[in-house]
């Protein structure tokens, strides 16, 4: 049916099956309450009003004719019969001695039940209306089986309603759309009829993307503009810097080195980083370079890659700041480029880290081989390198040890060197290398981020968050068993009423439901 004009209204409020905030507010101010009896509304008028109210919530998208055909006056209920009671008594104690005036048999099935009772703890106490007759009338219903609340139970069998009740859509109309659009399967087969009546044992499954869209915060236009601008700028700079670096390397090795020294001094750290990046982006093209020059480029790339990550790793993955999260995402993009993955590739975090580790190892091996070859370098330089190497060896032995330990080892390994050399060696180890422990931590961090990534191709706001005001409506009735991980649920049985509770989620009081039931009984 067409969605009525002013679906959510404040002037003429109606309750709806939806998580809308207008609906929440209407629920809060008790829109569906039975009016205090003033004047003399006829029974017909009372029934009509109650029916109109309840039907605007229960299946308002279903034509009245169809609902009337679904209506059943046989209301289901169940009783808990603990096996302990059934074993201990054969039921004769209920009848024993009734004739001779014995009416105080305290043995009932209920006394044997061990199921936790419903809470009676009040969260907030609102000032009760003085002399509320309706409330006085309703008090007794808590001690009986509220059959009248089961009036709309047949509607809960419908597929669209069940999808909504399993928290896979934010309103019944949305659930209905999901079904019609073919996003719902029943027992593994696509079901496009929202009015399909689920049978006990049916498993229905909704497309995860649809569920995330339905229950997530809505997407804003250009929400991640800044991030994308940053990424693009980075890539552009990197490409240019790479061209420059290649030119320089091709010209003169010594000048290049000098330039690199100058850059590392802190003059233009950004530019250096970009140069390194660029190298990573197209290492294929660098085939013409000498291996040593290539190694140097690689070294700088790695250094840049791990620049921000070291800082992030010190924190707990659960409480990263927004900036750190952004850095992590930038790192992911950079790492992908460094390992020459395609931009859009869906690399697993673990895979990415493994590859990175492999790269680092080979990088380290290359460095060692260079050192063996290259004995002509300055005395102090080689000494520093050797010290670094020693540290490397020691740290490799104690991979599992924490960072503090490693720091100490570094200090130990660097004994006998001047301060300047020490800092240099530390930079070499520290910037271009991560210990296994740190690697593992980084992998965990990336995985954590990957669970809920920023992805502009999605139709909802990323990273995914539940939509506001969802928690007030978040309940799953017992006749469904839901697995939210795969967005699937099983319809276990038809909803039933028990003593003091009814399983049909309805926002109306017992009196309203009673009047409604009487309307549909059609007894004048």
């Amino acid at each position, binding site marked *: 049916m067409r969605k009525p004009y002013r679906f959510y209204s*404040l002037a003429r409020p109606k309750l709806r099956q939806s998580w809308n905030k207008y609906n*929440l507010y209407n*629920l*809060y101010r008790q829109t569906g*309450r039975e009016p205090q009896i003033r004047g003399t509304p006829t029974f017909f008028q009372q029934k009509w009003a109650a029916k109109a109210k309840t039907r605007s919530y229960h299946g308002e998208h279903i034509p009245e004719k169809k609902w009337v055909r679904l209506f059943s006056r046989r209301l289901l*209920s*169940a*009783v808990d*019969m*603990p*096996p302990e009671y*059934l*074993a201990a008594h*054969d*039921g*004769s104690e209920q*009848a024993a001695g009734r004739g*001779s005036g014995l009416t105080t048999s305290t043995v009932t099935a209920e006394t044997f039940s*061990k199921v936790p009772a419903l809470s009676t703890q*009040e*969260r907030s106490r609102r000032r009760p209306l003085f002399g509320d007759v309706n409330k006085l009338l309703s008090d007794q219903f808590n001690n009986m089986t509220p059959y009248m*609340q089961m009036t709309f139970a047949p509607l809960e069998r419908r597929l669209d309603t069940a999808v909504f009740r399993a*928290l896979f859509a934010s309103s019944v109309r949305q659930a209905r759309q999901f079904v019609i659009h073919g996003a719902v399967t029943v027992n593994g087969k696509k*079901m496009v*009829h929202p009015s*399909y*009546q689920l049978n006990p044992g*049916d*498993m229905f*499954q909704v497309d*995860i993307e649809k*569920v995330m869209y339905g*229950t*997530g915060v809505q997407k804003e236009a250009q929400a991640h503009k800044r991030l994308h601008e940053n990424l693009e700028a980075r890539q552009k700079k990197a490409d240019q810097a790479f061209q420059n670096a290649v030119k320089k390397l091709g010209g003169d090795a010594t000048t290049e080195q000098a330039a690199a020294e100058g850059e590392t001094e802190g003059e233009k750290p950004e530019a250096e980083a970009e140069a390194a990046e660029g190298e990573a982006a197209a290492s294929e093209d660098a085939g013409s370079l000498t291996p040593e020059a290539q190694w140097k480029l690689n070294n700088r790339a790695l250094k840049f890659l791990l620049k921000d990550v070291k800082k992030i790793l010190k924190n707990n993955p659960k409480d990263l700041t927004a900036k750190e999260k952004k850095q992590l995402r930038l790192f992911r993009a950079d790492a992908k480029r460094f390992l020459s993955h395609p931009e859009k590739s869906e690399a697993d975090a673990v895979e990415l880290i493994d590859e990175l580790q492999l790269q680092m190892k080979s990088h380290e091996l290359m460095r060692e081989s260079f050192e063996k070859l290259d004995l002509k370098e300055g005395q102090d330089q080689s000494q520093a390198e050797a010290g670094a190497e020693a540290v490397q060896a020691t740290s490799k032995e104690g991979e599992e040890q924490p960072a503090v330990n490693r720091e100490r080892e570094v200090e130990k390994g660097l004994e006998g060197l001047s301060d300047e050399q020490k800092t240099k060696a530390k930079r070499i180890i520290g910037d271009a290398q991560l210990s296994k422990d740190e690697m593992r931590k980084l992998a965990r961090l990336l995985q954590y981020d990957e*669970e*809920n990534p920023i992805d502009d191709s999605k139709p909802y706001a990323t990273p*995914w968050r539940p939509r*506001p005001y969802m*928690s*007030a*409506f*978040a309940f799953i009735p*017992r006749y469904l*068993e*839901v*697995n939210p*991980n*795969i*967005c*699937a*649920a*099983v319809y*276990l049985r038809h909803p039933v009423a028990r003593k003091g*509770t*009814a*399983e049909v989620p309805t*926002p*109306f*009081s*017992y009196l309203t439901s009673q009047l409604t039931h009487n309307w549909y009984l059609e007894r004048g």
Partner: protein
Amino acid sequence: MAPRLSAASTPLAPVVDACLAQSCKSKSAPFVRSFSSTPCQQKMSRARQQMFQWLKGREGSEFADPRGGPRYLGPLQDQPFPLNPLFRSQPVLDEQTRELIWDKVMGRGESLKAVSAEMGVDVRRVAAVVRLKEVEKQWQREGKKLAIPYAKAVMSMLPKTSYREGEKNLPHEPVNEIHVHKLTMQQLFVPVSESRHFTREDAAKAFHDTMLCVDARSPQPELIKMEREILEGKSRQESLAKFKEATQKEEDKVARRIAQEQQREEKATTRVTTDRYEFRFKEINADDVGRNGRSRKGTGWRYGAPFDDRKRGLVKIPTSVP
């Protein structure tokens, strides 16, 4: 959309001044003026104001971003609808418990009824949990992405029951629940002599000749038997072992029956594989369609029998999905 000027906060004069100044300044379009000289009305009714006041207030903002744990409107803690204390948000099984159920059934091979009795979870729910978990595991094997952020958010908003192995736990729900039969919903007066031992069975007989008593309709008859044995003086462990054995045997029997059925089916079909299709042939008896050609057992359509699958007024929506 251009920002609206509120009527109350800004007097008219500066607006007009600004308009004038702008129109004087721009030489390219000297007659640029706002369409109306009066600032447009802020369309915010009293009801809307009150609503946003509540939404932005303490209570409303709590719902907007929940801080862990369920949060409902109602006066009672687990009551989602303020007017209906008869509907409560009942706890669901948490992630670890569902994993444990799956492990017990699939890993350790315990019977569904035994797991149900031990953990206080309905048998049908135990079966459903295992079924859903199996699908989840299959997804993980296939490398399909799960809805982890959604699941985390939802589970944080719901009340949960968790079962810890080796500890004392409250049951999740009644395991031996019995539907109230239609015939028992009427009041019945049966004159019985005072000396007669009038049991549940007799009561069921009084309602209807073929009606079964509660013990026979129970989903867990073995459990009742076990309790009875305990009351007779057997030790709890002994009777529990017996109960487990009985349920296991029953389940094995069902499994065997299903396997046999499959085998029989397999025997009755002849498979012929070509490079493109696999043909499956079965013996069909044409007389199975019955006298009017509409018997459920029959295959195909008998010549002349009306075919209603496109008729107006007949419901085409399937009633069950196998």
